């Protein structure tokens, strides 16, 4: 190339060096694979989705948070120090007790100070203050408030309880002296399962109607699409209110709960049905589905072998994203006194206490249920996002 430079510009422009790469050429190198590639290439759809999902850190942590919350569902009685309806008439509207570790510079382990109460005669209210001399260490793996586990077996074992004769109101109490923290733990049982049961109903309906509309098309598709459009045009909250107001007052709490989930599920399926339909329509046009048809496969085989596996992951993702709206729906209805009622406890029922703004300004801890609701709804949204990103591993 140096002599190239010495020549005149014209010559350099016309004389081009014929360069040949000196390294030996082996066309087979591109077909060799490393062990990691081999592992990846033998991985099924679900494995690749899991690897992809794991990379979405926010979604993974949301999943962990949700698992912790859902632990309250089976073990509410054990986790909560009191039962949801235990009343302490000595401590009405008691403020949250904070947990301390050191008493007068000495380490004692987690404990709370006892509460002194006196009546403020001006406002005619109980006023609570910490009694700095009364150290009440928290007990662990202890026997305390009695309950019926799952409504079946009697028990009194708790993860942690207040000191003998003491109190442990981590988030304060309400107007009847019921512990807010225990209420939240019990409330999770209903609030968190409403979404799951509702979504199950919604998935069944959505798959059924979306499947019919997407695979058979024609009149069925038209009819279902019009019904969906009508349902979507109805205002959601008034409809919920009307339907839940129609639930008989005489029903037991369990029936009310199921009635409520069915209402939420019945009104949620159109979105899922549309997702199923559009996914089916696009998958039906995939060449591998056509190939199966041209090989003589019957519709049942095409649907089960080629179409269903293709969109099951999408259905899971969109279902996850519709759980929060169910949780919020239940909360809204119970808050408005149209859903669950005492003695059932859900986060909406607990919030019912906070309907009066003047009460909330004086006893702000009544708003505590808002915090788990926000966390759970956000976590479901992040988790759903992660699932949706991972849902199509071949893109």
């Amino acid at each position: 190339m140096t002599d190239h430079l010495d020549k005149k510009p014209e010559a350099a422009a016309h004389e081009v060096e014929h360069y040949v790469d000196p390294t030996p050429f082996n066309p087979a190198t591109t077909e060799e694979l490393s062990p990691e590639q081999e592992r990846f290439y033998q991985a099924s759809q679900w494995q690749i989705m899991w690897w992809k999902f794991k990379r979405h850190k926010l979604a993974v942590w949301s999943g962990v948070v949700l698992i912790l919350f859902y632990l309250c569902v089976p073990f509410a009685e054990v986790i909560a120090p009191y039962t949801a309806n235990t009343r302490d008439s000595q401590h009405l509207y008691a403020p949250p007790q904070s947990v301390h570790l050191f008493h007068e510079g000495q380490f004692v382990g987690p404990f709370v100070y006892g509460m002194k109460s006196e009546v403020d005669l001006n406002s005619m209210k109980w006023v609570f203050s910490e009694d700095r001399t009364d150290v009440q260490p928290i007990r662990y793996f202890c026997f305390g408030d009695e309950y019926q586990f799952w409504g079946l077996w009697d028990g009194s074992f708790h993860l942690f309880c207040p000191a003998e004769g003491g109190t442990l109101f981590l988030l304060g109490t309400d107007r009847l002296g019921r512990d807010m923290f225990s209420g939240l733990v019990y409330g999770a049982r209903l609030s968190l399962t409403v979404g799951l049961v509702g979504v199950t109903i919604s998935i069944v309906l959505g798959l059924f109607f979306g499947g019919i509309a997407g695979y058979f098309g024609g009149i069925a598709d038209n009819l279902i699409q019009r019904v969906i459009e009508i349902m979507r045009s109805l205002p959601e909250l008034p409809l919920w209110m009307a339907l839940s107001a129609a639930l008989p007052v005489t029903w037991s709490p369990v029936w009310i709960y199921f009635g409520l989930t069915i209402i939420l599920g019945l009104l949620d399926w159109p979105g899922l049905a549309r997702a199923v339909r559009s996914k089916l329509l696009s998958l039906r046009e995939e060449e591998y589905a056509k190939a199966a048809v041209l090989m003589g496969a019957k519709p049942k085989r095409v649907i089960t072998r080629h179409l269903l596996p293709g969109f099951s992951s999408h259905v899971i993702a969109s279902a996850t994203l519709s759980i929060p709206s169910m949780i919020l729906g239940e909360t809204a209805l119970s808050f408005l006194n149209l859903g669950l009622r005492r003695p059932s406890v859900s986060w909406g029922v607990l919030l019912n206490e906070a309907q009066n703004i003047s009460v909330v300004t004086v006893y702000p801890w009544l708003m505590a249920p808002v915090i788990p609701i926000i966390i759970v709804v956000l976590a479901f949204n992040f988790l759903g996002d992660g699932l949706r990103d991972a849902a199509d591993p071949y893109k």
Partner: protein
Amino acid sequence: MHYAEAGRDDNVNVLSVEGLSVDFHTAEGKVRAVDDVTFAVPENKTVALVGESGSGKTVISQTIMGLLPPSAVISSGQVVLSDPSGEIDPVDIGSLDRKGARMRQLRGNRVSIIFQEPMTSLSPLHTIGDQIGEAVLLHRNVGGPEARELTQEMLRLVRFPDPKRALDAYPFELSGGLRQRAMIAMAMICHPALLIADEPTTALDVTIQAEILKLIKEVQSELKMSVLMITHDFGVVANMADEVVVIYHGRIMERGTAQQLFSNPKHDYLKALLNAVPSFHMDKDERLAPIRPIEVKADDLKQGRTECKVAPGEPLVDVKNITKRFGLRKSGLFSSSKSFVTALDQVNLTIRRGECLGLVGESGSGKTTAAKAILRAMEIDEGAVCYNHGDGLRDIADLTGDDLMDYRRRVQLIFQDPFSSLNPRMTINDVLIEPLEIHGIGTPSERADRARSLMSLVGLDARFLRRYPHSFSGGQRQRIGIARALALNPEFLLCDEPTSALDVSVQAQILNLLQDLKRDLNLTYLFVSHNLAVVDYIADRIAVMCRGRVVEIGETREIVSNPLHPYTQALLSAVPEPDLNTPLDFAALDENRASEPASWPEPFRLEAGVAPTLIEMEPEHFVCAPGLQEARALEGTAA
């Protein structure tokens, strides 16, 4: 270094790429896409950058345009642009901020690019005039009316039929060829020093490709600019390039003038690549030499194979006068009238047992619709498709139940796109035994044996059966698709553009595989393709389709060496050959006339509504010439 200096000293090289390496930082680690690449684009010359998919040629073009994605890092080397017009000083593009003002000033002004896909590279929301004029407004400091003037001038230069009207046209009003012309106008409007053409004709039909190549050549000589032509097609290279750079896996394999590389290829890769391209000059018995040849082991499959009972040479499939119309919905709110597009107009085809019939046509010619009709994947409006099951020809529309299943066994399709035709959620084993399951053939262990012998039939390792399709390259997937099609011992294979999505080196491999299978298993093929050279290589007879009609049909040699129909002639003359001695005859290109039946010369002229009658103009060589039929009819009455 040397190139860069040469560029500064004598101002000869508009672009000098020196020791360029580009790394991609991905989740799997660092991937080197471009490895120590050195080449230069001299002033007023065309340099072709040739490589297969994944070779890094697009990364190089992105580097020059400053369009590399954020995950890409230039780890060494420089890319020096020296503008011969002196408008800017020589600058190392690699060192500029990709989003900075200096890069923006270069991009679209001194360096511009034409993309591959004209359908998606224009915004549908703006008029052609606005989109082309945008670059002038940004870079040339002119006002609206002046920009419009310049745009119109540019549209005239790229041979728009009516430049003034085209200014206010929206992209959807233009054909693919015109859109690509608009793209070229947009790239040229600032009179760039360097034009990068990234596969500018790959998405276009062959006659339009020739026009666009001609246009690029003309505009280049008129505006005195340098062109970096990125392509995988040696035919395009031979017709366009002064110098050629061959790239493989990010490394330059060979570089030199077109003359040097075509007459004296030195590197094994280039030699192999040139041997893998089919051309019209090959003898009938000559075989392509793929870079990675595969061995066909058909012994397992031959055992217990039910042979086709039709004697060789007898008609196996007879397509009689089929017509297919697609209804178009009128856009009017109250009008319910429907208009029709005739996709197939009285098509007649006979496929003889043991032969390979090539069906050639440009996009929209109806060749895929014809294939679908033969597969009974679609209802036809008129005519019949008859298939010989060994007991005479029977209309396939009458088949039901077991007879239809039997037909589905005998006739198999090989798809164009090897990526979407395999279910990504099934292992290769499941893919291969699926046809057997559908037809209820064999026990599970027999099916497993069958899957293994199918794999060895197409030269793949039986260990791959546990893998999923995403682990295979395009060529390997296509081989799996072929294996699946052969699982049921078919007699007749319909190949719908089986190689058009593949690289040239893989294309040769698949073509040879299909040829070997046909020989070993006594198969009959209908080979649908837009690529005349490929069809010439594999087919015994060729049928040419245009606008839903068969215009010419005959022996391959006969059609290629003695085309009678004007459309076939135009098609053949537009195919760029990978040979410097047979350049395209740009002067003979007739602007867009060839595919318009109403403007064909007599006796070939075809008005709407006239039956496209095939006349045997020479022995076994039929041509659609309605005029001739009338003449003969007249002769007949006269006699």
